[in-house]
């Protein structure tokens, strides 16, 4: 890829990334949404977070199959419980990292 093509490429990438981020904020923020849509949207964050987390802790990146015994999954359990108990974001990040680091060393 020439450097002109590369520039064109990242400008295009930027545009198609920006539009889905921008369109709902620009069009929906001053409109009254139907109740069912508001309710639907209140479930979306929990769903997105689950959908981001699960494949990343359950699927083994090397084999591409489901593996419940890998460190990423095993560490997720105490990390989740810690979050549930303390509700501390910073603490959870530190605990998660520490456990993952240890698991990677010893498991």
């Amino acid at each position, binding site marked *: 890829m020439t450097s002109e093509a590369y520039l064109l490429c*990242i400008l295009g990438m930027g545009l*198609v990334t920006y539009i889905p981020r921008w369109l709902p904020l*620009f069009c929906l923020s001053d409109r009254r949404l139907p109740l069912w849509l508001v309710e639907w949207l209140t479930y979306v964050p929990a769903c*997105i977070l689950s*959908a981001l987390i699960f494949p990343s802790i359950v699927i083994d990146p090397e084999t591409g199959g489901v593996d419940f015994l890998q460190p990423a999954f095993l560490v997720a359990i105490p990390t989740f419980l810690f979050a549930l108990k303390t509700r501390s974001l910073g603490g959870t990040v530190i605990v998660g990292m520490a456990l993952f680091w240890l698991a990677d060393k010893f498991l």
Partner: protein
Amino acid sequence: MKMTTDSTATGVYLPRAFAAAWPICLGYLAIGLAFGVLARQAGFAVYQIALMSLVVFAGSAQFIAVSMISAGASVLSVIATTFMVNLRHILMSSSLTLHLRGERKSMLSLFAYGVTDESFAVNLGKFSEGTWSLKHALVVNHVANFFWVMSTILGGYAGSFIPEGAFGIDYALTAMFLCLLVFQLKGRLYVFVSAVAGVLSVIFFLAIPGNSYVILSSVLAATTGVVIKSCYLHKKRTSGEP
């Protein structure tokens, strides 16, 4: 009088926004370094890496783009793939609008630039607590963006000197997402829909090539939630309970 309140508020909101942003920054440092190293090895110049991070600001799409470009893909196919990978943000921006009623369109347009998986999750959690504003959220987005760009540059220059996976930093974002998920579990139905989303996301991840699993599983699971709630309300109404 108004000015005093405003300047006090400004004095307070920056530290609070920074405090909310640091877990994102930690995670971006890990991913940004990895991205910088990879792109540098694939033959990209550091200024090209920085430019992509600044213009696109999307982790997974940037990794995919680098591997596609170095495999000789066309400009159009890279852009089309990026669009598919980043379409999920439409859901995040939509649910953020619930907390950004009547804000200025210019500010919202600036805010939109920084809506990532991570900034979305942190800002939404804070908005649900009720003490967050667009100003706070903008700081979170731009601090995160600054860290992202800087980390990819650092990775491009010196990444190969930093040991991989040091201090479990690769797990920072997973741990952050786990805690933010806990914040979102506001009732039994929320637990149920997020479990549905989790199971579906793994199935779709395995069954469908590409990155559509996030958006597909989230849409289906959230819809399940609305359906269950309306069935429950309907039953309650017809059985004449208060």
